[in-house]
C-alpha cells in the first residue's frame, strides 16, 4: 500500500487524480473503470474539503492505494467533522429541470461507480474505504 498526504485544497485534486489513475492502471482496471475511480475519488475529496473541513487549507487528505487480487482499494482519511452517510438520500434523477437540485450528485456517483464503499468515523479521524474490482476476464 502506498499512502500520500495532500493539503486539503482544491488544487490538490489533479495530483490526487494522477496518483489514483496510476494505481488503478497498475491494478489492471479497464480504461472506463479507471475513469469511474477517478470520478469517485474526486467527489470524495471535494466533499472532504467542502463538508468535513468546511473550506480549503483546514486539514490534510491522506490517500492510500492498495492493489489487491480483485482490483484496487482506496482509503481516504481526513480529520474534519464526521457525518452520517445513511442520512444522505439519493438525488431524484427524474425531477424536472426546475426542480432538479444543483447538489447531491457526488455521493451518488461514489455509490454507483464503486463496487464497495465503507465510511468509518473515529474521534478525530474519518475513513472512507472504496474498492473497484477488475472486470470478469473470462
Amino acid at each position, binding site marked *: 500500500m502506498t499512502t500520500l498526504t495532500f493539503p486539503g*485544497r*482544491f*488544487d490538490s*485534486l*489533479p495530483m490526487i*487524480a494522477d496518483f489514483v489513475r496510476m494505481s488503478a492502471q497498475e491494478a489492471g482496471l479497464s480504461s*472506463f473503470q479507471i*475513469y469511474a475511480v*477517478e*470520478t469517485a475519488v*474526486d*467527489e470524495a475529496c*471535494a466533499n472532504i*474539503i*467542502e463538508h468535513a473541513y468546511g473550506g480549503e487549507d483546514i486539514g490534510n487528505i491522506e490517500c492510500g492505494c492498495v492493489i489487491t487480487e480483485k482490483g484496487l482499494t482506496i482509503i481516504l482519511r481526513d480529520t474534519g467533522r464526521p457525518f452520517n452517510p445513511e442520512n444522505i438520500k439519493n*438525488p431524484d*434523477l*427524474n425531477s424536472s*429541470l*426546475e426542480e*432538479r437540485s*444543483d*447538489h447531491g*450528485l*457526488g455521493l*451518488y*456517483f461514489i455509490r*454507483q*461507480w464503486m463496487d464497495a464503499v465503507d465510511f468509518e468515523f473515529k474521534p478525530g479521524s474519518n475513513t472512507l474505504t472504496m474498492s473497484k474490482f477488475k472486470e470478469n476476464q473470462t
Partner: protein
Amino acid sequence: MEITHTQFKHCDVVKVTGRVDSSTAPLLSEALTKITEAGRYRIVVDMAGLDFISSAGLRALISTQKTCRRYNRGEIVLSGLPANIAATLDLAGFTPLFKIFPDATSAVGNF
C-alpha cells in the same frame, strides 16, 4: 482546464478542454454566467477536448440551463462528448435535460 468563448450570430460557443473538477468548475461557471448576464441564452458547450468532469462541473451546466430555459428564451446544448463524459452525464440523469450533438457545427446549426 482551458475555456475558449466565441460569440456567433445566433449562439455562443464555449469550448472547454482538460479537467473540470471542483477547482476549475468555478471558471466554467463564470464563463457561462458572463454570457447569460449579457442577455445571451443560446449556448453550445463543446466538450470534444474534455478529459474529466466532476459533479461540480455538472452543477455549472444545470444552473446555466435553468437560467437559459427561463421564459423560453434559449437553452444550453452540448456537443462532442467523449465516451467517459457521456457516461457521467448519463449517470447524473442529465441526458433528458440537454440536447446533445455529435459536433459543434451541428450544435451551432441547430440555433
